[in-house]
C-alpha cells in the first residue's frame, strides 16, 4: 500500500478504511445479498432482483414492472407521492408533537412559541401544513388519474373502494389537524365544517356531537381532534394503506396502458 516515499497516501487510506468498513462482519450482517452497498456488488440481473426483494421497503415493489409503468407520464407518481407526503407529514408531525399541548389554554401559545423559539420550528410547521394540503391534492389527483385510466375495472374494483376510503381518511386527517393551532381560523373553519356534518340526515347530529365532544367546539373538542389527528386516523389510514398496496400487487400490478 505504500507509495514511492514509503508513506500511505490519503486516498489509499480512505480506500482501505472503506473496504474494512463495508467488508466487516457488522456490515455483512446488516446488508442482505444484493444490496448495492455490499462489498463486491455487481450490476447483474440477479442482483437487480435481489436489491428489491431483499429490502424491507423496496419489497413493496415487484422485481419487475411493466415498462409503461415506469414512464412518468403514465402515473405522474401521484400515488407514490401521496404515500411519501404521508411519511413526511408523520415525521414533521412527530417533531411538532414535542412542542404542543392539546389544551385550549396552551395550544395557541405553543404554536406561537414553536414559530419563534424553536429551531426550525416555523419551517417544520409550514412543511406540515403545506404538505397536508399537497397530500389532499395529490390523493385527489391520483384518484382522477386512476379513473381516467379505467384502472378501477376488474380485478381492481375493491382497491378503488379502499382508495376512496383513503381519500376520506386523508380529508379527515387534514380537517382534524385544522383545529389544532386554536386560532380564529381553526376555530371557525372547524365550526363551519362540523355544521355541515350536522346536516347529514338521521345521524347528522350524533356525528357532530361525537366529533365535537359536545354541541359546539370547545376545549374537549381540541383534545378529541388531537387524538384523532395524531393517533386514530393515522392508525386506520396505515391499515388501509397496507391493504391498498397489497392489492395493487395482487391485482396484477399497475394497470395496463390505454
Amino acid at each position, binding site marked *: 500500500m505504500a507509495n514511492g516515499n514509503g508513506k500511505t497516501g490519503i486516498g489509499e487510506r480512505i480506500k482501505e478504511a472503506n473496504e474494512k468498513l463495508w467488508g466487516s462482519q457488522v456490515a455483512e450482517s446488516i446488508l442482505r445479498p444484493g444490496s448495492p452497498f455490499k462489498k463486491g456488488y455487481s450490476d447483474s440481473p440477479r442482483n437487480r432482483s435481489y436489491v428489491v426483494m431483499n429490502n424491507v421497503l423496496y419489497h413493496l415493489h415487484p422485481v419487475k414492472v*411493466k415498462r409503461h409503468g415506469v414512464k412518468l407520464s403514465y402515473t405522474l*407518481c401521484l400515488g407514490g407521492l401521496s404515500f411519501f407526503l404521508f411519511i413526511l407529514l408523520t415525521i414533521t408531525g412527530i417533531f411538532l408533537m414535542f412542542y404542543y399541548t392539546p389544551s385550549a389554554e396552551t395550544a395557541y401559545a405553543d404554536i406561537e412559541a414553536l414559530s419563534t423559539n424553536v429551531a426550525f420550528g416555523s419551517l417544520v410547521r*409550514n*412543511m406540515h401544513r403545506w404538505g397536508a394540503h399537497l397530500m389532499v391534492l395529490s390523493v385527489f389527483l391520483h384518484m382522477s388519474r386512476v379513473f381516467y385510466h379505467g384502472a378501477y375495472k376488474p380485478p381492481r374494483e375493491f382497491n378503488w373502494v379502499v382508495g376512496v376510503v383513503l381519500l376520506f381518511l386523508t380529508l379527515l386527517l387534514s380537517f382534524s389537524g385544522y383545529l389544532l*393551532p386554536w386560532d*380564529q381560523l381553526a376555530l*371557525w373553519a372547524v365550526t*363551519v365544517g362540523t355544521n355541515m356534518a350536522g*346536516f347529514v340526515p338521521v345521524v347528522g347530529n350524533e356525528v357532530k356531537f361525537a366529533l365535537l365532544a359536545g354541541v359546539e367546539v370547545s376545549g374537549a373538542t381540541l383534545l378529541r381532534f388531537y387524538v384523532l389527528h395524531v393517533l386514530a386516523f393515522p392508525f386506520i389510514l396505515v391499515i388501509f394503506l397496507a391493504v391498498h398496496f397489497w392489492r395493487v400487487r395482487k391485482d396484477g400490478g399497475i394497470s395496463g396502458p390505454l
Partner: protein
Amino acid sequence: MTEIPESLLRRSAEAKAKALGLPVEQVLAEMKGEAPPTPPPSEPEPAVQAEGSVAEEMEESAERSAEIEEAVESVDDDPAPAEETAVEPGAEAEPEIVAETEADVPPAAPTEAPPAPTPEGDGGVVSSPEGEGDAEDDGGDVSSPEGEGDAEDDGGVVSSPQGEGDAEDDGGVVSSEDEPAHETEVEPAAAAVATAVEDRPAPAGDGDGAGSGNGAGNGKVASVVSTRPTVPPKGTPEGVRTQRLLTVVKARAIQTVKAEPTDKVNTWPHLMLMEFGALLAITGLLVIMSVVIHSPLLEPANFNATPNPSKAPWYFLGLQELLSYFDPQIAGVTIPTITGFIGFWIIPYVDKNPSTRPSDRKFAIALYSVFLAGAATLTIFGVLFRGLGFNWAYPWQDGIFFDDLRDWVQFE
C-alpha cells in the same frame, strides 16, 4: 401439445448448453426429441434431508442457476422480449418442457413427480393452471396459462393452481400449507406439466419460506410437487439429480392458453430512480414553499368573535359554496352523499364497460370531467369569490377573503 416456438426452445437450449458445457445444437436436438438425451454429468450431491436443509438447497440451486438466469435475462432489455410465454401442455406430460428448466436432469423424469411426498416447491416454478390463473413472477419469467388469477413470487416461481389460488412467496418456497399430501396427488396419466420458461429457483435462498412454505393454494391446489424430492425416487442411479418438477396439473384444466408477452423492466434501477427523483422533487418543492409561504396564525380562538366571512378548509369550500345555493338538506347532504360517499364507491360496480380505452368510455370520462370541473369551479368560487357574509365578491375589487393564504409570500 402445442408446438413450442423455436425461439423459446433455443433460448432454453442455450441456457442448458451453457450450464452443461455442451454444444447448443446438440441440446436443442435433444430437446426436440431428435437426439437421445445426454446423460447428465454426475455431480455428487448429498442426499438432502427433510426440511432443515431446504433453505440450503435453495441457496445452492440459486447459485447453480445463476448462469442460466443470466443467459436468459440478457434479452431483458430488448423492446419486446417474449418474457412470458405460455406453453400449452397436452394431456400427457411433456418431458421436454420440464427439462428445459432444469439444466442437469434426464428429460424423462417428470413423470415420476406425482409420488413426491409433500407439497413443497423448493424454489419453485410456476404454473397457474386452471381458470383465471395468471402467474406473475417478479423475479423471473413465468408461464401464465390463463386469465387473471395471480400467482406471484418475488423470488422464484409459484404455482397458483385452479383459479383463485394466489400464492406468493418471497423466499421461493411455495406450497399449499393446509394441504395434506394426499390431496396433492395427481393421476400420472392425467397430468400435464406447465412450465416456466425461465427457471429461477429461489434467488432469495434465505430460507424465508423454507420448511413450511407459505403459498396459499386455497385448498384447491392440484399439486405442487417438491421440485427436488427429499428422497430420490427408487431406481434413481447414484449421483443423478432427481427431477425438479415445476408443477403438475390436471390435463383437462388447460383448455386454452392465452398469455400476452409483457414488456417488463427491472424495478431497480428503472422505477426506483424515477421514484427517487419524484421524492426529491416533492421534498424540494415543499421546503421551498415552506420557506417562502408562512402558515397562517390568526388571533387566538375567540368564541365571541365570529370572523366575517367564516370559511371552511379549502377542500370543503365547494360544499360550503353549494350550501349558499341550496337548502342544507340538499347541498349539505344529498349532493355530497350521492357524489362522495355512494357515487365514488360504486363506480367500479356500476361501470360494466370492460374497456379501458378512452374512445370506448366517452360517457364515463365526460361524467367524471363534469364532476371535476364542477368541484373545481365551486371550490374556486368559494375560495376567491366569496367575501363578507359569504356574499359574492370579486377578488380584484374586494380583495381575497381566504385566511389560509393571508400571509402569502413573506420572506424571512
